[in-house]
């Protein structure tokens, strides 16, 4: 059914269609609308049977999901930013225990300085936690990925994180095709757990594992993630047959045939990137786009093959490995068959900084012309940075950096974008 819906509402509808049995909610912007909508559905009986539990922290949210999942219930939660970090110990634990929890991460920056706007620092900080991580480009994909996430999680007995850009997607109204219950039921079988806490057949879960077996247990987690690389592409046909549209898979190439330059990105920024690439194509520039839907497991073979003909790669990422440069770009470089110095990192959009076509034209143009630095910070105000550094040289007690930058900028609201 076609519907004009807010991204959060669309995702909540999709989650509800997956018949979750236990939902744990702790509010954090920009995740709130998702759990609010689900809470309403449980209260009104539209989503039943389902337990909606308002917990006291994200750490508890993931812990309640762990208990529910281990007891055989389909469990869901959602978080963002600081919330994801606050639950981090339980995030790793859910993966280590092999519990197929699905969680939405409404991507948002990590403080300090506190910032509620979108970037990918939160999800990427958990890239090695053992969860499968999927990134949505638009609200339709966010909706579809949640349906696929439950099936993938339960098939592999691994948790899946569906990442969607905070505000840009969660709060944006777009047309979405909302499936019928019968369609979702045809795609997603009931949860049949590999391990369950059951008095009729008592087992111990979560025992101490020593050096004699720890490597093997960790390796098996790796093997399971590799299995996802096979499963996800193999399910796209079935998804299309049931839902009538292409969705899922590991990566998506756009105008990469004959492209000398390929831009790699995750999430909603792909729309702006594609528009920019279209305009550059009209000017005869051989440039294309590789969108990464599945970030964990990292689809090495798919990325390598998609970039096989590229003479240079620009990784546009909303994340920063402080002290190194790019996070995504390091993954891309590992998969790129060409020399790694042809993989350029463009750190962009941190803390919600708008990524405009004008800026992308310039940075992509620089790449095509062979004058792009290895690591570039898109639209960085070098003058402000220079003044803050000068102040630090002059004054021992130079004060807090964030506040110095803000004071220097003055009325910041007029400068966003």
């Amino acid at each position: 059914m076609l519907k004009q819906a807010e991204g959060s509402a669309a995702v909540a509808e999709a989650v509800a269609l997956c018949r979750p049995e236990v939902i744990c909610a702790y509010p954090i912007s920009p995740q709130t609308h998702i759990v609010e909508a689900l809470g309403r559905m449980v209260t009104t009986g539209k989503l039943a049977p389902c337990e909606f539990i308002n917990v006291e922290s994200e750490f508890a949210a993931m812990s309640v999901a762990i208990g529910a999942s281990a007891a055989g219930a389909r469990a869901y939660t959602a978080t963002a930013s600081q919330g994801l970090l606050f639950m981090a110990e339980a995030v790793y634990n859910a993966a280590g225990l092999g519990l197929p929890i699905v969680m939405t991460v409404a991507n948002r920056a990590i403080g300090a300085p506190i910032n509620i706007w979108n970037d990918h620092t939160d999800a990427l900080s958990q890239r090695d936690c053992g969860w499968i991580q999927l990134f949505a480009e638009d609200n339709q994909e966010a909706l579809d990925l949640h349906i696929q996430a439950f099936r993938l999680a339960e098939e592999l007995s691994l948790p899946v994180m569906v990442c969607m850009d905070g505000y840009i997607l969660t709060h944006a109204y777009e047309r979405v095709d909302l499936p019928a219950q019968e369609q979702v039921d045809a795609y997603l079988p009931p949860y049949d757990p590999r391990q369950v806490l059951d008095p009729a057949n008592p087992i111990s879960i979560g025992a101490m594992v020593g050096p004699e077996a720890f490597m093997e247990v960790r390796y098996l987690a790796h093997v399971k993630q590799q299995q996802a690389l096979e499963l996800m592409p193999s399910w796209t046909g079935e998804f299309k047959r049931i839902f009538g549209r292409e969705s899922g898979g590991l990566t998506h190439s756009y105008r990469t045939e004959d492209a000398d330059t390929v831009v790699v990105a995750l999430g909603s920024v792909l729309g702006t990137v594609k528009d920019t690439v279209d305009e550059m194509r009209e000017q005869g520039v051989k440039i294309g786009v590789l969108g990464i839907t599945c970030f964990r497991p990292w689809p090495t073979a798919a990325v390598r093959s998609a970039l096989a003909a590229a003479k240079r790669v620009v990784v546009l990422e909303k994340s920063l490995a402080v002290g190194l440069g790019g996070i995504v770009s390091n993954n891309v470089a590992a998969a790129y068959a060409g020399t790694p110095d042809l993989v350029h990192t463009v750190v962009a959009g941190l803390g919600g900084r708008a990524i405009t076509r004008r800026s992308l034209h310039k940075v992509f143009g620089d790449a095509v012309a062979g004058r792009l630095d290895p690591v570039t910070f898109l639209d960085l105000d070098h003058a402000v940075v220079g003044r803050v550094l000068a102040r630090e040289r002059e004054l021992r007690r130079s004060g807090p950096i964030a506040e110095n930058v803000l004071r220097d900028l003055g009325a910041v609201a007029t400068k966003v974008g």
Partner: protein
Amino acid sequence: MTYQPIRFYQTGTFTVGNRLLPDEQRSVQANMRRTNSLNSGHRACQGCGEALGARYAIDAAMEATHSQLVAANATGCLEVFSTPYPETSWQIPWIHSLFGNAAAVATGIAAAMRIKGRHDVRVVAQGGDGGTTDIGFGCLSGMFERNDDVLYICYDNGGYMNTGVQRSSATPPAARTNTTMPLGQSPGNRFDQGKYLPALAMAHEIPYVATATVAELHDLEAKVRRAMEFHGARYIHILVPCPLGWGHASAETIKIARLAKETGLFPVFEAEGSRVTHVSRIKRKLPVEEYLRPQQRFAHLFKDPPRRDVIDRIQQLADRNILRYRLQDDVERRA
């Protein structure tokens, strides 16, 4: 299997039941058909109070629930010594997730059972005092506040024993731990405000709160049974001496636990809906020295010269408890 009634001979304690009692008054532990939920072969130290307390409590819970029980366990001694896989001592469905989340994991299990229509299955969460009063307190308070259908059992041995005896917020004043060494003018743990979890649990106005020690088996079992008659959040705080951390003889675990109660340092009571409904009165009040002296963690108080001032302050705490919980009143404050 044919069931032959077993006879135990009285040994001066009630720990294995009493052959003089009628069958229905005998303890769960005295019953050959007890479930041995925490089975033999685990790696607890000799004389471990926690191993004893956990077996008593979970066997009683198993009897009360007709073996329809699931347990969530916090990280700690109990978790480590019970599951040296491929061996596990647990004869019940059991999960260990993290140090600080046992109460929340139990909430999730209870929610799953409710949604599955398994109303017969009951959920227990358990942890040591560190996992309960310190790192797990947020999740525990959340579970209390929501009145989730979970019985949380804290096995209080007054410190982080699994990591090698460090102070927790349940470590008593003046006690030596490896982070509160008996050095300087105020040796051992400081006299802080304390963090008395049973009172905090009562402040949440949950249906049932009780304290117990491993010295009184019948009382402990009765409290677990009573707890299982309620739905909603319940809390039982069991004092479990730790021969390793407390520095007492491993054969004296029961005796030390009894002294904690008889001196008034550990009040044993029950509360329903934040009101104390029953206290176990002190049979014969003993000075706190009787409890402190056999324990190496208090040895610095009895050197030459002894720290009479510190012992007096501990006595004041015991006397305060006796007054506050009417541990010597003639009339119990029954509801």
